[in-house]
């Protein structure tokens, strides 16, 4: 029996259906494949197909600890899945408000495979069950509120008439939980034109408290004048307030026609109708819609929510943020060193090593402890291995976004091989990686797909590969003397577009291989033994996404304060300029090419 089963008793036909459902299984990943790989789960090897839309998924896979905001979004996804639907949780304790998991296991490939097997048997037996209840959650609730089409500032919970103009108020759906956000001052019902008012021209709404019109008239028969709203005796058309008709201000174009005086709109000239619609770049008056991409969008890193205002298939405005609230450090009582290091390691599952290293360096710097050269070298080995894995992971995402199936699978499997490999194994992987690179070099359409997209001029915000792709040669590693010993050269590209970012990353993969071979060892950084030292310390680490900086204060052996600065936080602010007036696919590619990590973004 699964929680999200369909209603009905098991007949022979339903049995057959259930069995084939169990065999053909597609799942929706929370937060996403990138996290799955980061936890070392090989989705493809477990025989799991990913589905792009919740509609096509029969199971929800929740992987690792998921922050509450993300769970809220997961609830929406679950609600939009078709029954029978199951929930499979790996390594997360509490998943409320989602219903209880059908399968909950640990976080390992073995668990994944066994869990999938159990899930299939569950489906075969319990896809249909006689007793069941609807799924509901606060997020999904809506309340109906009533508003006046001419005076949107008039909003009340009961139906009635507008105190200003006496018009009957119209119902609209609004999310029960959230307050007055951009979604709920747009009509969901009758008046589509309401949404010509996209979030940037609220002022229209609120500047519209003018005196109530006294007389009502028919747009086609001006001789018809009465004091009550109603319909024209001659043509049956809805009467409009005379004042509104006389002064054809934006209320008319923007607000009225959708709701009350359709006749007037059909009658008015196009200029009047469209004068206040947002203008597209070619001067055409169009209506814009706000479309959410994410937080679980196939082409974007899981957890990143991208709100695009679309003008047709072109992005007019954008707003991006992460669903992972990043509480830097438990302010208040100091943390002991080990748990501090652990905290930073766990912060971003995509790049644990880099932040672990960052913590160690900062601590050692605060305590003026030096680490031996061979340890430092082994740490570099670990960090460069992570860089390779991270870049491969980005390639996989890039492949998924652009429908480049081969790349997606190849890069993903390579990442899984690299990220926990020991020194010999990494070195042994060089030929495979080389093959991948060669293949990419000869891929048709790849250049035309990426050149000129998401172009960035050099800018203080740029970090890591993104910066280097724009010709800025800033790299924390170039200052490090051990890196110098290992013969490090930073990869710099020109052009600053998605294409050169791709190439910088590919080049870096090779550099990192060389560095690992030079370093000759791989060992995870562990904080050096520090006594009851006190002092301030800071450190920078060139994480795969760019330079991360940590400043901390040590008070007799415990971390009392710390402050972190991460690359993705800066890159997030670039999205506006990257996506503006780009075709949807290009905009998404541009965002993807930044390789944001929602986990390290601080808001």
């Amino acid at each position, binding site marked *: 029996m699964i929680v999200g089963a369909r209603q009905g008793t098991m007949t022979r036909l339903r049995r057959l259906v259930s069995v084939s459902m169990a065999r053909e299984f597609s799942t929706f990943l929370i937060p996403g494949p990138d996290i799955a790989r980061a936890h070392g789960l090989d989705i493809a090897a477990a025989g799991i197909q990913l589905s792009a839309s919740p509609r096509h998924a029969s199971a929800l896979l929740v992987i690792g600890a998921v922050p509450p905001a993300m769970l809220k979004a997961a609830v929406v996804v679950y609600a939009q899945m078709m029954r029978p639907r199951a929930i499979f949780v790996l390594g997360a304790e509490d998943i409320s408000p989602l219903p209880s998991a059908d399968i909950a296991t640990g976080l390992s490939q073995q668990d994944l495979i066994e869990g999938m097997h159990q899930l299939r048997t569950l489906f075969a037996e319990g896809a249909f069950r006689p007793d069941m209840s609807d799924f509901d959650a606060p997020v999904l609730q809506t309340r109906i509120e009533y508003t006046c089409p001419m005076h949107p500032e008039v909003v009340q919970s009961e139906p009635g008439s507008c105190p200003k103009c006496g018009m009957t108020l119209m119902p609209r759906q609004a999310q029960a939980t959230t307050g007055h956000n951009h979604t709920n001052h747009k009509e969901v*019902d*009758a*008046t*589509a*034109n309401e949404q010509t008012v996209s979030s940037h021209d609220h002022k229209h709404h609120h500047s519209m408290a003018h005196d109530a019109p006294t007389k009502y008239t028919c747009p*086609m028969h001006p001789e018809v004048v009465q004091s009550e709203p109603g319909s024209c005796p001659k*043509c049956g*058309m809805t009467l409009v307030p005379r004042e509104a008709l006389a002064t054809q201000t934006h209320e008319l174009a923007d607000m009225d*026609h*959708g*709701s009350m005086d*359709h*006749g007037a*709109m*059909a*009658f008015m000239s*196009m200029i009047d*109708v469209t004068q206040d619609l947002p203008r597209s*770049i*070619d*001067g*055409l008056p*169009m209506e814009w819609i706000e479309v959410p991409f994410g937080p679980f969008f196939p082409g974007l890193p899981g957890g990143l929510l991208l709100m695009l205002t679309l003008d047709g298939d072109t992005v007019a405005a954008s707003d991006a943020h992460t669903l992972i609230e990043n509480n830097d450090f438990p302010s208040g009582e100091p943390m002991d060193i080990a748990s501090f290091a652990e905290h930073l390691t766990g912060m971003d599952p995509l790049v644990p090593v880099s932040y672990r290293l960052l913590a160690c360096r900062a601590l050692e710097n605060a305590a003026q402890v030096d680490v031996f050269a061979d340890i430092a070298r082994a740490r570099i080995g670990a960090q460069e291995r992570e860089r390779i894995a991270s870049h491969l992971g980005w390639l996989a995402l890039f492949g998924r976004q652009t429908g480049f199936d081969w790349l997606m699978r190849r890069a993903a499997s390579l990442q899984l091989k690299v990220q926990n490999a020991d020194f010999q194994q990494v070195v042994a992987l060089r030929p495979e990686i080389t093959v991948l690179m060669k293949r990419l070099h000869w891929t048709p359409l790849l250049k035309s797909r990426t050149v*000129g997209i998401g172009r960035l001029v050099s800018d203080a915000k740029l970090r890591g590969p993104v910066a280097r792709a724009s010709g800025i040669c800033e790299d924390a590693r170039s200052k490090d003397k051990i890196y110098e010993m290992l013969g490090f050269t930073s990869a710099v590209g020109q052009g600053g577009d998605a294409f050169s970012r791709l190439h910088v990353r590919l080049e870096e993969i090779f550099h990192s291989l060389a560095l690992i071979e030079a370093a000759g060892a791989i060992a995870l950084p562990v904080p050096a033994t520090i006594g009851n030292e006190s002092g301030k310390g800071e450190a920078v680490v060139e994480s795969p996404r760019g330079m991360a900086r940590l400043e901390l204060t040590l008070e007799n052996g415990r971390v009392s304060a710390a402050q972190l600065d991460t690359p993705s936080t800066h890159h997030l602010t670039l999205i506006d300029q990257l996506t503006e*007036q*780009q075709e949807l696919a290009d905009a998404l590619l541009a965002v993807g090419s930044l390789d944001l990590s929602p986990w390290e973004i601080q808001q």
Partner: protein
Amino acid sequence: MSAQMFFIGFFGLAAVWFGIVVFRTFSMVRSALALLFSQTALGAMFLSMQAEFLGVLQIMMMATEMSIMAIFMVMFMMDPGGLGEMDMTHQKRLSLIAGLVSFVGAVAVAVFADWGPAASVVPDAAQQTVDLGLELLGRSMLIFETAGITILTAMIAATAVAIQSVTRSNEHGH
């Protein structure tokens, strides 16, 4: 024969009905596609009259043309989804009269015009296409070329009206 008449009538009615739907719906896209299917029904009528090339051509071309009309309607009409249920028709009386007059006119032409002797036997479909081709390259060559000129004029006119000059466009990207 009777079956033929039936289908002619059937598709005729279908065409008319879709034609009515064009005006009875609030949604721009719907009315555009209704027109499309009305045209398709006309094509089917041609088929049942054994004018194969004409019919298939009608069915093919109208689909694309009307779809493109649909996108232009969605671009330029208010509330293309018809969610506001706003009535797009106006000047009802006038249009009603105009419609009636033209209908009567059409019927009159159909009835009173001298259509010459009806063809005793329909040439087979392949032959029709060949005849059409020979006609185009023979007697009607001038018409054919004129059509070319007309299309050219249409293209130039459309471009001149709708497209803003390249110079302004260069500022904004690809």
